[in-house]
């Protein structure tokens, strides 16, 4: 499992073990367990960034509890920002990027988030960050030429009172961000009750459909993928370990062979992810979806063209 780390594994392992142990001592068991799972499950190439995020997330969870003070929220975002974007400046997007989220989450396991894009320069990527979640980066969308630069809709899990950030990168390499605060009644999102066998039976099912007309959008659409997006935090008491995380890691959507977007996802996406977006059909307008989850399962679907406005 640590094949590619084999040369350095004694050093790496003791370092990571030390971090997990520190978390156990200073923070909470769930956090440490989540971290350990991350170590053993993530493919190495995605590993480093995720590990850094996990360290930041776990480390800052404690002070960020309950009614997060403004200072804590700012410090936390500063940590996340520097982990994700290094020394790059992230500009305040003003009204060029807009986040629409409820003030209070009705269901912490499914919080609908809409990003409205209004930037003069083409946006090449949007990252969604749920600051106080154990794994804050919900996903990064990289847009292709067929994506209509109007809106993006996703559903996320929210584990605590938190800021949600959207960060847009434009084609000239500039980063813009906007954020909104969300309250969560009754704490974090409840793990699904679904029977694992039933969940597995429908895993990878997809639907693709037109949604309500939006001005300036040729086809407003919604992609639905049935997937538990297990976050790896459910305790399996019988086996006294955790249900392993299993989530959609990559989703590629194209029309007539032209890219609409490419999503790199994580556990902060809701169960059965639903993604809303607009696109301009290319060629015959047909849609191809290719999705891969963290256990290496691949799901693909072809959809005939949807009617245009």
């Amino acid at each position, binding site marked *: 499992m640590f094949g590619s780390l084999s040369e350095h594994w004694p050093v790496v392992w003791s370092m990571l073990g030390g971090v997990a142990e520190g978390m156990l001592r200073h923070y909470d068991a769930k956090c440490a367990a989540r971290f350990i799972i991350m170590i053993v499950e993530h493919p190495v190439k995605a590993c480093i960034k995720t590990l850094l995020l996990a360290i930041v997330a776990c480390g800052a969870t404690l002070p960020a509890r309950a009614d997060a003070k403004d200072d804590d929220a700012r410090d936390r975002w500063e940590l996340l920002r520097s982990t994700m974007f290094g020394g790059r400046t992230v500009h305040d997007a003003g009204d060029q990027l807009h986040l629409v989220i409820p003030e209070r989450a009705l269901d912490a396991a*499914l919080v609908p988030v809409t990003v409205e894009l209004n930037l003069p320069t083409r946006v090449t990527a949007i990252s969604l960050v749920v600051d106080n979640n154990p794994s804050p980066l919900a996903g990064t969308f990289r847009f292709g030429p067929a994506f209509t630069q109007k809106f993006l809709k996703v559903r996320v899990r929210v584990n605590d009172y938190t800021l949600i950030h959207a960060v847009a990168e434009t084609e000239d390499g500039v980063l813009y961000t906007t954020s909104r605060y969300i309250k969560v009644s009754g*704490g974090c999102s*409840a793990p699904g009750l*679904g*029977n694992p066998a039933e969940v597995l039976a429908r895993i990878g099912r997809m639907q693709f459909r037109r949604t309500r007309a939006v001005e300036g959008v040729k086809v407003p659409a919604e992609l*639905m993928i049935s997937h538990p997006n297990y976050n790896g935090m459910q305790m399996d008491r019988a086996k006294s370990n955790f249900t392993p995380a299993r989530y959609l890691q990559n989703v590629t959507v194209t029309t007539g062979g032209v890219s609409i977007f490419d999503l790199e996802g994580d556990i902060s996406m809701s169960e059965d992810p639903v993604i809303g977006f607009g696109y301009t059909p290319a060629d015959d307008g047909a849609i191809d979806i290719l999705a891969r989850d963290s256990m290496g399962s691949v799901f693909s679907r072809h959809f005939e063209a949807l009617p245009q406005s």
Partner: protein
Amino acid sequence: MAGAPTAVRLAEVAPGIHIRQGVTEDATAANSDAIANIGFIVGRDAVAVVDPGGSFDDGQSLLLAIRQVTELPIRYVVQSHVHPDHVFGAAAFQAEGPVFVGHANLPQAFEARGSYYQQGLEKILGVGRAGRLVTPSLLVRDQIEIDLGERRLTLTAHPTAHTNCDLSVVDRWTNVLLAGDLLFVDRAPSIDGDLRGWLSQLTALDALKVRAAVPGHGPALVKWQDAVGNLQRYLTVLLNETRAAIDRGMPIEEAATTVGLSERGNWALFDDYNGRNVIEAYRRLEWE
């Protein structure tokens, strides 16, 4: 913080059926999560607890109340479903050595939700007062009968409805239904299973022709016909309006704030539960 648990006041809603009505609130440190209707049934030889309560304190209060009524052994502790307000008192009965009974899906539901509920409850009540889950050893897949001595109870495991592990109890002697959270009265229902499934289980329960029922929340005893009618109406409004919203292409966030509002005046805590119910209904119905 509350003091030591004291015996709570129970109502004998039918001969030998004692019910403690829960308060119409969400769990707080002050109410010890005593928010569900819980109680016990006394037979000739033994007692069955039907829902052990929402916390260790709540369970202990119930145990004290039982001992004010009878010295008979507590042979069964029936757990109606996974929700913490009904089952976190279980550990208070362990010293009595009962058989813990639950739906065949309950152990798996405890596995999925147990640590999440435990942490949530401990945050509200404190670590010592939250209690803990006791995994049932007698599992009901379809239907079983238990006997308390000239008093037989029929326990039915339902397909997914309020949750995926709802167990109802009918006392054969009085023909009273202990519905658990398959029946909500006055307090806004919460959907954690399947809306259509719940409606069909209400139809199935209706066929039993019981006259009276103990709901999971609401008065200690209600006339079945009136109570089930209100719940069916709410769930049907939710089903029809959510379906219509999906058909019209209304996004989930908009549906959550517009569906079901005609029911607002009929239920306590409506604003705390309806939006969430719509989301739960929407995310299943959108796959139809």
